[in-house]
């Protein structure tokens, strides 16, 4: 693994876990390799879709798989490219067990000049018995203003500005 990728990993985690909807959902990115990302979503009562059973809403699975696949797509590129989702198709194989965490993995299976093709899977007890599976495609858009790099730079700046004491303590 090169140095650039070693720096990229914590930056991706910061951008995905600490901003906007990612922060609201409260997942943790557990693995980042080139073309492969995994995350862990602990159960949250706020995102229940069926109040009779406590099963989380399908929309959460959409967000987790979109985030995981999108992150896997970003690992294929340099920082001046963004990857908006073109489309995402999701099959729900079974309802998620309530009160249990959900694990999500995503893998890039084809990378062309303009499009990145991803597969994603969500499971609980058994990786081979998923609760949902998806395919998603991402467009490669060359830009500097909205790239992951600029998002992360802004986040890091904000993070250090808001918590200077925390930073000092960690350094010591």
């Amino acid at each position, binding site marked *: 693994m090169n140095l650039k990728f070693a720096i990229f990993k914590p930056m991706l985690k910061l951008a995905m876990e600490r*901003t*906007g*909807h*990612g*922060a*609201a959902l409260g997942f943790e990115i557990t693995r980042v390799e080139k073309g492969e990302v995994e995350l862990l979503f602990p159960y949250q*009562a*706020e*995102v*229940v*879709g*069926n*109040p*009779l059973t406590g099963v*989380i*809403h*399908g*929309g*959460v699975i*959409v*967000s*987790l*798989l*979109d*985030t995981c696949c*999108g992150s896997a797509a970003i690992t294929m590129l340099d920082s001046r490219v*963004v990857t*908006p*989702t*073109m*489309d*995402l*198709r*999701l*099959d*729900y194989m079974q*309802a998620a067990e309530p009160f249990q965490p959900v694990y999500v993995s995503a893998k890039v299976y084809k990378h062309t000049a303009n499009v990145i093709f991803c597969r994603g899977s969500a499971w609980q007890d058994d990786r081979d018995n998923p609760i949902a599976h998806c395919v998603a495609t991402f467009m490669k858009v060359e830009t500097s*203003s*909205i790239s992951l790099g*600029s*998002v992360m730079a*802004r*986040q890091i700046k904000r993070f250090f500005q808001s918590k200077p004491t925390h930073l000092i303590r960690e350094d010591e």
Partner: protein
Amino acid sequence: MIESPASLQTKIADARALRNPQQLLDFIPYAAFIGAKAEVKGSGIIYRLDKRPSNIGNPSLPAIHGGVIGGFLELSASVEILYTAKVQALPRVVDFSIDYLRPGRYKAIYASCEVLRQGRKLINVSALAWQDDQSTPIATARCHFLIS
């Protein structure tokens, strides 16, 4: 809070009788989590997702998270079924597909749904999301739900 299938059925019947689909969203915690709203306009229901920081995907644009748009459309489709189709229980989603047509900018998103086919077991719903104008949609989705 919903304690039993019977109380759920009562809530569904109430929402239909009062022509108030918002009552259906009120008992789904995920709807409050993303801030989804629904009201009857003309002959159908218009769903609305107001902007809020916790729905942002890309903070530097800022843009609404694609997953939130997907979740909002799936939620809207299930409320459309509860409101318009004669079902007694919450529909269970089988598959969901979304095409993103434009970025969701940081302002309200609107959606409408249409039940394209209702069988005994399966129901197919299409959903459309837009911001300024219905003729320039930001996303289109379709899904299957089991209703028995």
